[in-house]
């Protein structure tokens, strides 16, 4: 079906194939961040969008995320006691989405966008005091402006979780900017647990050995309550001790990021 509302080019348009380039430069950059095993520095800015109630912008390496929050806005129709929340994560049109085999349609969200959106929604739902906003909606729109080049080609899950991690953080800042009442600021940590018990932070795509990728989101100043868990990889043999290790490590990373967020908020809001 052709899209009559958009100018998508002539009907017999062929999408050229773009061969993958193995670039050495990117991998070197990656190694640098891995060897220090720490979180790369990131840039945040809030209130960048005038016609949204709250917005934030985040840059880390080549990943650029923008979140805008619209609401609480009144809804039409019958009365509802609690506010309703809608979350939409979208890649900009030009981005070749990771782990996407079929051509993404221009209308609606792709498979990957759905997964990102539903994780974000599940994290934010327990955090917002929705009962304070009857008969209204809060819309969160995330647009992913740029992603790391390594992420496009990699088939590993860690890059997706890495992106998700920063989406959560950017959304938290936007929520504060929107002055919507929340229980606590959400931050999260993302790690990779290898079979021999090693913990790694950051994206790695040369890793072939079996491992578990984990992203856990917390409300760190509310008794470290967990608001979201996303595990990827073979979890059939996951033991209790491994799980608690994962949670502890994610919590550590989350706290570091939270400290950064706090200092940004104190200085800038």
């Amino acid at each position: 079906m052709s899209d009559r509302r958009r100018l998508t080019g002539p009907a017999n348009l062929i999408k050229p194939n773009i061969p993958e380039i193995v670039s050495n430069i990117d991998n070197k950059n990656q190694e640098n961040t891995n060897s220090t095993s720490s979180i790369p520095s990131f840039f945040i800015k809030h209130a960048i969008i005038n016609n949204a109630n709250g917005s934030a912008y985040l840059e880390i390496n080549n990943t650029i995320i923008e979140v805008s929050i619209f609401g609480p806005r009144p809804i039409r129709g019958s009365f509802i006691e609690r506010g309703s929340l809608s979350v939409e994560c979208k890649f900009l049109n030009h981005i070749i989405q990771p782990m996407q085999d079929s051509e993404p349609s221009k209308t609606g969200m792709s498979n990957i966008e759905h997964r990102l959106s539903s994780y974000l929604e599940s994290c934010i739902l327990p955090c917002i005091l929705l009962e304070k906003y009857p008969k209204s909606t809060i819309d969160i729109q995330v647009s992913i402006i740029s992603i790391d080049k390594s992420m496009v080609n990699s088939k590993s899950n860690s890059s997706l979780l890495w992106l998700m991690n920063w989406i959560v953080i950017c959304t938290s800042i936007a929520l504060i900017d929107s002055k919507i009442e929340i229980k606590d600021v959400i931050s999260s940590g993302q790690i990779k647990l290898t079979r021999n018990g090693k913990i790694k932070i950051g994206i790695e795509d040369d890793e072939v050995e079996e491992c578990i990728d984990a992203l856990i989101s917390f409300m760190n100043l509310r008794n470290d309550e967990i608001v979201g868990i996303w595990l990827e990889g073979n979890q059939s043999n996951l033991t209790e001790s491994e799980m608690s290790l994962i949670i502890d490590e994610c919590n550590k990373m989350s706290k570091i990021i939270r400290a950064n967020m706090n200092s940004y908020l104190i200085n800038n809001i």
Partner: protein
Amino acid sequence: MSEAELQQVKFPPEILDRIAPDISLKRHFAIGVRPNLRNFTEFKPIEIANSSQLQESNNNVISSSIIKSGSTTIINTITLGIIENINPNEEKKKKFTTIYPNVEILRGRSGAPTDEEMILSQNLYETIYKSKIIPSESLKINNLGISINNEEEEEKEKDAKQEILYPDLNSNEWQYINLSNQYNKSYSFILLSSIKVYSKSQSTNSLFDLCYLSIINCLKNLKLPRCYINESNLLSTKISIRSRKSNVRGLINTNNNKLNLNLDLNRTEKIKLNLTDGLISSNYGVVDIIKKEKESESENENENENENEKNNEKNKLIETILLCDLEGEAEETSILSRLTVITNKKGTMNKISLINGDLNSEITFDILKKAIEISQKRSLQQGV
């Protein structure tokens, strides 16, 4: 018992803008400023970023432009499509081609594009087409290459080293290649532009100006890559099978993935354009403002009210003025006479669009002349 008093309600300017745009506009003009605090003939400053980050991190993006005006940010990326010229004779008649823009404005709701987005896209599409900027010839793929696997050299390795040969660069090897039917087809590039607008505060007309600027900016830096066909694809035959799942009848697109882009930066070629320097699009609104009321000379108390009103009308000094670069809700909704002029450094014009929407403040020749003069000045100073 206290009397119930009707309290006067006061609104801050931004709310008055929304509920009574005409009143808000009049009050601002009465004190000599626009609601956005600019002068009447002052344009909003524009910043153009010269970063190529989006191109570098996305293989499919061949040109990009980021433009900021106030808080409004426009991200424009250009990707390529390829089209087969089925009827070469007919294609020759079309001397100029255009770009396919897709404007998206962040507005907090998802779903189908709004009227504004569709109008902007269509307008950009037509403006670029009619101003004859992109010759069809410049998007034609002339030297289509063929990639060849060097099997003899590296037989054992799975990914045999690929070599891409082009008729103009490798003329020695080229004579030994058997060309198939596939090769003899003629192809052209199609430019697809996706424009995302954040934090819209301008009127639709101003947004057009910014989008136009971003497309021109993209086109200026545009370099077309070379294109090649895989040898293996040339030999393979495909049988189209009608599957139960798909509704596509007849032929399944057999051209899929046959054309590859060569991303080697040394092999790219700058697009040949019909661009004149200093292109810029400027928009204006035309509106009547009441200058000062003349003080009535005779204050005869005997005169009845009707006459008083008439006198007042006469004493009002109405002036039709030109507002540059409309912005904000009050201007967008209550100024209906609009002008858009695209000018260049050569002193010629690429487009004039004129809407006489407001019967009370029509566009006169003088106003039009003034608008063109301002646009030309702007072209010399700010045009890209």
